[in-house]
């Protein structure tokens, strides 16, 4: 069996979410969200602005505590973990790519230092090795090796986003959260990023949860799609099935309001 077959045939979901609910006072952030994510799978989350996508993602990533529901990661109850355990997970097994690279990078630290931080956080103590790994990852995200000592503030938006991805993936996480990773980038830069992400998902067997409002992005990147409206999941399924044969009125509207995805 190939690696990929083994990954797709595993019967254990990497992430199992049940009845996740988060309220902001009277307002619903997200309500009763359930899904399973398997190793090697990319799950897209779409929905109009304010539909609860970011709320859901931040609850999943442990940035916010949901009011109700269960999250199991690799069979472990995430909400019952101590903060130490959860933070250790988010330094090793998990990664979070922010919509705004400034939120996910240390702007005062060089590109190499940004990439190396997670390595040092898990105990890497050999400067040469750390720098070698950082250079390797900069290469993978197509940032020239001679920029390794430059600060991200000297990078374009697309480069910053790629740097953020390198910084997140260097420790070989198994689960990556992405909130609008291609937002604010022009189309050709988006395309490069998509290509990069697809390659990484394929080569590293990553599981990804990606929030976006761009249906073209999810069509190319996500295996499965979840459509949210007013905090609830109104439809989920295979990405191309949801986009080509949408069942819910809201999804039909969403799809028809976008030209040819």
């Amino acid at each position, binding site marked *: 069996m190939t690696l990929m077959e083994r990954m*797709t045939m595993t019967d254990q979901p990497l992430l199992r979410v049940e009845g996740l609910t988060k309220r902001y006072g009277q307002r619903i952030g997200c309500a009763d969200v359930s899904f399973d994510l398997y190793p090697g799978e990319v799950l897209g989350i779409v929905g109009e602005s304010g539909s609860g996508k970011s709320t859901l993602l931040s609850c999943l990533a442990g940035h916010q505590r949901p009011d109700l529901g269960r999250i199991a990661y690799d069979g472990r109850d995430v909400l019952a973990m101590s903060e130490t355990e959860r933070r250790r997970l988010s330094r090793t097994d998990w990664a979070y790519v922010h919509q705004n690279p400034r939120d996910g990078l240390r702007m005062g630290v060089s590109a190499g230092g940004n990439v190396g931080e997670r390595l040092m956080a898990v105990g890497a103590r050999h400067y040469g090795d750390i720098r070698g790994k950082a250079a390797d990852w900069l290469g993978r995200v197509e940032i020239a090796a001679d920029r390794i000592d430059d600060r991200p503030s000297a990078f374009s938006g697309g480069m910053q986003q790629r740097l953020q991805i390198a910084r997140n993936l260097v420790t070989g996480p198994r689960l990556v959260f992405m909130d609008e990773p291609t937002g604010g980038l022009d189309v050709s830069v988006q395309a490069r990023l998509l290509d990069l992400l697809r390659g990484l998902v394929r080569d590293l067997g990553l599981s990804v949860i990606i929030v976006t409002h761009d249906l073209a992005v999810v069509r190319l990147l996500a*295996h499965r799609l979840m459509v949210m409206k007013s905090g609830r999941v109104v439809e989920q399924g295979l990405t*191309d*099935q949801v986009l080509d044969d949408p069942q819910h009125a809201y999804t039909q509207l969403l799809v028809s309001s976008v030209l040819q995805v």
Partner: protein
Amino acid sequence: MIRIENLSKSFTLHNQGGAVIPVMAGAALTVGPGECVGLTGQSGAGKSTLMRMVYGNYLAAGGRLMVGDLDVATAEPRQIIALRRQTLGYVSQFLRVVPRVPTLEVVAEPLLALGTPADQARERAASLLRRLNIPERLWSLSPTTFSGGEQQRVNIARGFAHAYPALLLDEPTASLDAANREVVLSLIEEAKARGAAILGIFHDEAARARVCDRLVDVTEFTPKAAA
């Protein structure tokens, strides 16, 4: 390999007054290994719809839709993903790819997704592109800027890269010249020879006659009320 029983399909247009359009009822057919079955029927009869349901791209409303031992009509998304990766290939009418990705990579991708070593995958992709007369100077470019016929051939190369046990072909020869059509037909014959079950839509009578073992007219499956 493919067994369809009592399959039905309708579309509900929520944003057009909730209109329900029944497009298929009681559909049934089988395709055995090494066999090629052609779908016929006038435009709009439901050929592509049926094929898309087999691929899991459209949801079935009812019935059974077996590919190997998986019922696509009721399968979980991830089972369909695995099916598409390993078992069921699909050459659609249009090529849909990530912009900027070189043609060679586009064609090699189904193999890479299966974990085939990169050089092996690219070698196979190159041989298919060569056979389909895509000039080598185009291989490093994205197919997004190619002509319709070139895109179609890239799409075919991609569909034939992995030796799927079952294949869906939606008008694979539509916009091809005689020489390239010949290549595609021989690819289909080779696939049959290795035991692939093929469900195809061919508007070209000669092509149909040459590769199809049986024909199924989907007009038979048109719901009575709508007919």
